[in-house]
């Protein structure tokens, strides 16, 4: 348990450093990538491409492992159904991301700057996450 927590802190440090080094703390950079009709900035494509290399390699290695090194089993989602919540949720997230240029990873990492805009966005994001728990079918699923 302690080992797993220390590992999580270490992985978090790598993640946050990666977000900062790649300039993903800057929403203007993200918006410039999303603005395909304007002065397009390819930065986010390099970040995604770079991230997918070790991540894809880890899933190839995982195939040869019965369990992760510090836990009894893998906790990787196995659901393969394309449903309405998946697409609707992606679209709603896309609108918010396009309006401001912030998604959850950079928001968390950028808290270190203590900028009021980041703090306001983070609070609104958590309120939005909490609101999801009040969806009628979501409550039914929790009850069942």
């Amino acid at each position, binding site marked *: 348990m302690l080992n797993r927590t220390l590992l999580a802190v270490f992985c978090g440090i790598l993640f946050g450093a990666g*977000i*900062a080094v790649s300039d993903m*703390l800057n929403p203007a950079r993200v918006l410039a990538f999303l603005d395909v009709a304007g002065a397009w900035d390819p930065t986010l494509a390099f970040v995604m491409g770079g991230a997918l290399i070790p991540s894809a390699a880890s899933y190839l290695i995982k195939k040869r492992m019965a369990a*992760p090194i510090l836990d009894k089993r893998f906790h990787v989602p196995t659901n393969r159904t394309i449903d309405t919540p998946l697409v609707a949720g992606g*679209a*709603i997230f896309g609108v918010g991301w396009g309006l401001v240029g912030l998604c959850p990873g950079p928001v968390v990492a950028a808290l270190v700057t203590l900028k009021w805009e980041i703090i306001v966005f983070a609070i609104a994001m958590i309120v939005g996450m909490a*609101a999801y728990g009040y969806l009628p079918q979501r409550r039914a699923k929790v009850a069942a």
Partner: protein
Amino acid sequence: MNELHFLWPLAGGLLIGLSAALYLLFAGRIAGITGMTATVVGLVDGGSWSPARTQALGFLGGAVLGAGLAIAFVREPEIIITPSLGLLVLGGLLVGFGTRLGSGCTSGHGVCGLARLSPRSIVATITFMVVAALTVFVVRHVLQGVV
């Protein structure tokens, strides 16, 4: 906005991917920030304190620390945030609600899901990328300064 050499985003991306890879192989978990944030603030499993919650808190705390270390010792970021207070709140609400409804964001679906060719993550990533680009198009090229 400053020009940025492509080696910076490539190096940063590799760090993010390495983080996701180690988290998978050692802890057996997806490095998804949406799920971890919801877990840390008590929106998952009725808010009970579980080992998963401690781990998620460790990861997110580490992310704040890692960003601080990189800012202090690697490069000072330029952070330009132009949206108004109202748009920040609206954007935050939509990002929070949408990522929970869609079971993930750029890290969980993008970095971890695409890497294992999950059909759900491929659909989710295409959806939020296309909708975000359309949103930017409407705001910048259709409404132009209205919002």
